C-alpha cells in the first residue's frame, strides 16, 4: 500500500457559465446502432427510388407510412409500392426548429395524401415559396441520388 498515492492531474478545464449558482457545461453525446428492423424494406426502397407502403392482409387498408401490423384490425401487412404523385393534405413552413434543424430553416413540411391509400406521409416540400403552398396542391416525389437511408431521402416538389 502507498499512502502517498496520487491521482494524475489533467490540463482539461471546465466551462463555467455562472458561479452563483455554479453552472458548468456538461457535454453528452452517443452513437446508436439504430436498427430499422421490420421497417428496413422502406429504407431499402428509397435507395431504389421507390416509396414502399403497407397493405393489410386482414382488412385491406393501405398505409402510406409503413407498419408491420395493421392499426385497425391487427393483421400482418405486406409491402406495396406507393404512387409517386399525391396531393398536399396539410402544410406548414417552419422558421424555427430543433437545434439540429435550425440551419435548414425555413423549411416546409407537408402531409401527402395518395389516391387509394388510407393514411398520409410526412415529408418536405422543396422548390415552393411558403405562399405558393396550399391544400390540394399536386406534388411529386423525388429521391436523393446519394441515399442516406433516412426518411429525408425522399422529398416532394410541385407536380
Amino acid at each position, binding site marked *: 500500500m502507498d499512502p502517498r498515492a496520487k491521482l494524475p492531474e489533467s490540463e482539461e478545464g471546465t466551462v463555467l457559465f455562472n458561479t452563483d449558482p455554479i453552472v458548468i457545461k456538461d457535454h453528452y453525446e452517443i452513437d446508436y446502432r439504430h436498427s430499422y428492423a421490420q421497417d428496413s424494406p422502406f429504407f431499402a426502397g428509397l435507395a431504389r427510388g421507390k416509396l414502399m407502403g403497407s397493405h393489410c392482409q386482414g382488412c385491406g387498408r393501405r398505409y402510406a407510412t409503413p407498419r408491420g401490423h395493421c*392499426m385497425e384490425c391487427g393483421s400482418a401487412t405486406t409491402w406495396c409500392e406507393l404512387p409517386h404523385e399525391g396531393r398536399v393534405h396539410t402544410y*406548414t*413552413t417552419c*422558421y424555427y426548429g430543433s437545434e*439540429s434543424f435550425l440551419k*435548414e430553416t425555413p423549411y416546409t413540411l407537408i402531409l401527402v395524401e395518395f389516391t387509394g391509400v388510407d393514411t398520409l406521409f*410526412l415529408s418536405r416540400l422543396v422548390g415552393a415559396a411558403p405562399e405558393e403552398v396550399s391544400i390540394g396542391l399536386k406534388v411529386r416525389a423525388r429521391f436523393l441520388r446519394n441515399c442516406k437511408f433516412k426518411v429525408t431521402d425522399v422529398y416532394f416538389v410541385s407536380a
Partner: protein
Amino acid sequence: MRPVYMISGGITKFVKAQPHKDFRLMVREAYDYALADLPGLTPETIDGSVCSYFSDHFTRQVMAGAMVQDYLGLNPKPSRRVEGGGATGGICFQSAWEAVASGRHEVCLAMGFETMSRVNTWKGNEFIALASDTNFDYPLGGFYTGYYAMMVRRHMHEFGTTVEQMAKVAVKNHGNALHNPFAQSPAMLTVDEVRSAPMVATPLTVLDCCTMSDGAAVAILASEEAASALGGTPVRITGIGSGSDAMRLADRPHSEVLILPHENPEDYEGLRFPGVHSFRGGRMAARSAYRMAGITDPGTDLDFVELHDAFTSSEIQTCEDLGLCRYGEGGSYIDSGASFLPNLNYGLKFSGSEQWRPVPVNPSGGLLACGHPIGATGLMQAVFAFWQLQGSLAKHLGNSMLQLPEPRRGLIHSHAGTGTTITVTIMERV
C-alpha cells in the same frame, strides 16, 4: 373503487429558468406549500407517491423520481414514476387517484416537475421532438410546433377557423394570468400583437405557443375517511378518463366522430374524424370521464375548464373534443366570449352569440401564460382547479379576480404529443 378526494395542493412559481434550485428542491417547495395549507397533513400520513417528469434528457438524471422521494423524507414508502409526454402530469394525478381508489393508499402524493432551462430552447425542442417517431417524423424537422401547425392548418381548411380566433385565445389566457402570481408570462395582448409576433411555423406565431419552464407542482389525494380525518375543504374527484391516438399524425384515421351524450351522429355527416384536425384521444378521454361523473351536457354541467393549451390552436380544437361546442364551432366559440372570464376586460369585442353558456376556459392563464414545465403542468391544473372549487383562490393568489362565484364542477385536461395520450379528470365541490 371508492371515492377519492384532493385534500391539498402546492406549486412553485413557473419561470423560464430557476438555476438556484434543482428538481428536488422545487418539488420540496410545492410539497411544503401543500403541507402548510392543511395543518392536519404530515409526512407520516402520506402512504406513498407518484412522480411525474417527462424527460430524462432535460433532467440529465435517470430515476430522478427516486431522488425526489428521498429528498422529501418519504423513504421507504412506495413511489414510482409515470411518464406520458405532455400528459405526464395528468397521468400522475390519475395514477395517484388509482392508488387511493383501489384501497392501496389512504393518502397519496402526486408530485411533478420539469427543469427545461438546462438546455437552450432549440435543444429543448429537439428533446421534445424525440417524442415523435424517430424513424419517420423526427428527421423531417423534429419540431412539435410544426406538427401542431399542420393540424390547425387542416382545422382552418375544414371549418374556416381563423388566425384571429386563435390569437384571441392568447389574449384571454395571458390576460387571465395578470391576476395569477404563479404564472410565468402574464400580459395584456391584442390580436394584432399576437399576429405580428415572430412567425414560428405558419400559421403559429411565437405568441400562439407556450414557453419552456422550470417548475414543480404537487396534489395530495385521499380516501373519504382520510379526507374527513384531516379536515380542510376537500374536493371530490368524480370522473377519470383517458384516451390515445397514433403517434404519427400521418397514421390518424379518417373515420366517424365519437359522439358525446348531447350530440347526434347527424350533426357530423360528411366529417371525417379525427383526421389531423382533431384529437380523438381527447374525445375518448372526455367521454369516459363524463360517463363516470354523470355529465350529459358538458356545456351545461361544467363551470370551468383548465385545458392543455400548449398552442392557441389546441385550445380551439380541445373545446370541440370536450363538447363545449360542436366540431367546427371552436372558432365561433372563442368569438362568442363564452370561454372568457365575465369580470375581466380583455379589450376585445365579442360576437354577441349566446349559443353557449359561459364556461371559463383556462381561468388560471393555462399553459400559454402560466408556462409548461411538462411533468408539473397537469398537476398545476389540478391545483388551480382545486383552489377554484374550494373558493380559496384569493388566499393563494392574493386577489379574487379569477375566483368564480360558487363553482360546482371543473374539468382538467392534460395532453401529449399531438394528442397521442390525453387525460380528462372531473373535480367537484363537496
